[in-house]
Each structure stands twice: as structure tokens, then as C-alpha cells.
């Protein structure tokens, strides 16, 4: 191969590389139709943490076309991370999502007097609870730094703004630890609207 051909080849490669790196990224930017980003705080209604302010941050995406990422041997795993911080008990944990199931909230009661199926302990839609027909996701994860610690919650995107429209349900986190490594038992919360923050769930193309 002549020197000129090699030079041409290098230039062609350079141009192709430039297209890849600096070109239009829209198709590459977010490769998963199903995504969740959530952040804020809510007041726990759990048996041992009633009234505690819980701060949380969650990211997640599921590349499966149905929005079901059960992980393990059952199917594709999601990609995502979570943070959980109870400012009263001091429990702080973070970890990696290993399950994410996206859905649309449902209710058999069209009058809105019964809580939705995915958040049965929350108020009914008629009394300010999460509505039927909005995006939700059930996430589960494993804590990074504390053996045996797991994380699960349902996040419901009830509209804008997030305050008291978006809900966090079926929360179970722990056992965990405080910043000073004091053990904290598993914490639960049944169904609460956000006091601050927002839950954004994308389940459409």
C-alpha cells in the first residue's frame, strides 16, 4: 500500500471519528425509552419512623421495550442508582438498582374513592392521593456499603409540580447505618406525597 493511500485512509478515519464524536447526538443521548429521575423529600408514615423527613435521589433506566427489567436470570437488568437519607434516624444508604418495572397506575374504582392498586395505603385520588392512569415505577436495589441492606420503593409521577402530586409508596430500606456506622433497622413507609422535589418518569417514545 502506497504512502498516499495510507494518508488518505488516515484522513477518512479522522473525518469519520469527527462525525461520531461531534455530530448530532440525539439518537445516542438517551438510549432507553423507560427512565426515571427522582429527587426530593417526604415525611415517612412508617411504623418506626412516622413523621421522619426522608431525602432521596433515584436514577434508573430500563432498555427493555416493555419497561420490565426484573434483573437476575428473569430478564434484563436496569441501570440506576439510589440514595436514601433519614435525617431523624440518621440512616443513610446508597446503592445500585437491580430491578425496575415501569407501569401505568390502575384502579378498579372509577369514582376515585379507593386508593390506586400500586399504592393501596395512600389516600384515594378523591382525597389527594395518587391518581390512576399516570406513570409509575417499582424499583429495587442493593446497598453498596452495608451487607444485607436492600432498597425498594414505588415512585409515582402524578404531575406538575411534584409537591403532593408525586408519591413515594411501599418503601422498605435497610438494615442500614448512620454516618458513624451505628446500625439502623429496616425503615418502611407506606404512601406519601412529596413535600419537596419531583419525580419524572418517562415511559413513552
Amino acid at each position, binding site marked *: 500500500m502506497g504512502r498516499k493511500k495510507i494518508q488518505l485512509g*488516515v484522513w477518512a478515519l479522522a473525518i469519520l471519528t469527527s462525525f461520531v*464524536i461531534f455530530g448530532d447526538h440525539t439518537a445516542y443521548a*438517551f438510549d432507553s425509552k423507560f427512565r426515571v429521575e427522582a429527587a*426530593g423529600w417526604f415525611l415517612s408514615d412508617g411504623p418506626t419512623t412516622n413523621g421522619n423527613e426522608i431525602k*432521596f435521589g433515584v436514577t434508573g*433506566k430500563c432498555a427493555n421495550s416493555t419497561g420490565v427489567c426484573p434483573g437476575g436470570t428473569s430478564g434484563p437488568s436496569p441501570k440506576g442508582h439510589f440514595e436514601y437519607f433519614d*435525617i431523624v434516624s440518621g440512616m443513610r444508604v446508597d446503592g445500585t438498582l437491580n430491578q425496575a418495572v415501569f407501569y401505568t397506575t390502575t384502579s378498579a374504582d372509577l369514582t376515585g374513592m379507593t386508593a390506586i392498586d400500586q399504592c393501596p395505603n395512600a389516600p384515594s385520588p378523591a382525597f389527594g392521593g395518587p391518581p390512576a392512569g399516570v406513570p409509575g415505577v417499582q424499583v429495587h436495589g442493593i446497598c453498596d456499603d452495608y451487607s444485607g441492606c436492600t432498597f425498594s420503593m414505588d415512585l409515582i409521577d402524578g404531575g406538575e409540580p411534584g409537591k403532593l402530586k408525586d408519591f413515594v409508596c411501599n418503601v422498605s430500606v435497610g438494615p442500614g447505618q448512620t454516618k458513624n456506622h451505628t446500625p439502623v433497622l429496616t425503615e418502611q413507609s407506606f404512601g406519601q406525597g412529596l413535600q*419537596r422535589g*419531583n*419525580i419524572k418518569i418517562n415511559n413513552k417514545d
Partner: protein
Amino acid sequence: MKRITFLLIAFLAIAGSAFAQSDTSATTAAKGTFPSGTSFNGLPISALQIATGVIVAADGSGAEGKLTIALTATTLLGGQQIINIEADISGGQRAATNVAIVSGTGTVDMGDGTPPLPGVPIIATITTDSNHLGTVGLAIGATTLPSATIGDGSMTVTDLQ
């Protein structure tokens, strides 16, 4: 010939690194303190609470997510005032392994009865350490605050893989 070989290797390395990158997750649920003398809109502020859930695209083309902040301020009469900021994140970059810079626009509620101000540009620089703590730098509108030191809670900047 040496120059051509060098260029070829460089192009392949750049192309390879572009494909190898993952999306970045920046999550926080934490609280921290500002250095003494920090103020915002004329009020001394001492503490910060933050919750974040942001995904930054691997190629730097954008980001999406939510950022919630509460600043603890002291009123002129010595009382406590909470300034709430809620932002939609649309831009971001992974500045280093442990650093995510996210940006967007948000609503600033001074908590003093005045109407919340929407459309305020917000930039947050989240820097984590090995204890999942670290610092948070904020630019709110035209005001750049000194970095807050995170004292409790948890923050993570990591690859989504």
C-alpha cells in the same frame, strides 16, 4: 510514516473512548453547611439540604433530572427562613470521576411570602469523596455561592452500567 502511525493510534484512541463511556448518574440525599459569611439575596445562609436524581448522557449532549435544594437563611430579625429551589436539569457533564456538573432552570422561593421566581438558571457542581460526602457548589442566577461542605447523608457520581 511515524507521524501517520501516531495519528492513526490517536484517532482510534479517541474513537474508542467515545464509545466506551457510559451515562453518568448523579444522586444525592444530603445536608451540609456553608462557610461563615455566605449570603444569598442579601440574607446570610448557613446550611443546605439537597436531593438530586440526574442522568448525564455519555456523550455530553445533555442531561435530564431533578434537583431540589433548601437553603437555611437568617432573617434580618434573627429568625430562620428556608429558601426552596427546585430545578429541572437539562445539561451536564462528568468533569472528573467524582465530579458531576449539572445545569438547568429552576424556581426560587425565598420563603418570605414573595411570589416564587421561575426560570432562574441553576448550576450545581457535585463533588464526592470516598465517604459519599464531599462538596456542592451552586450558582443560582447571577449569584455563585461558595461550596457547601456535605456533613451527612449520601452523594454518588457513578457510571450507569
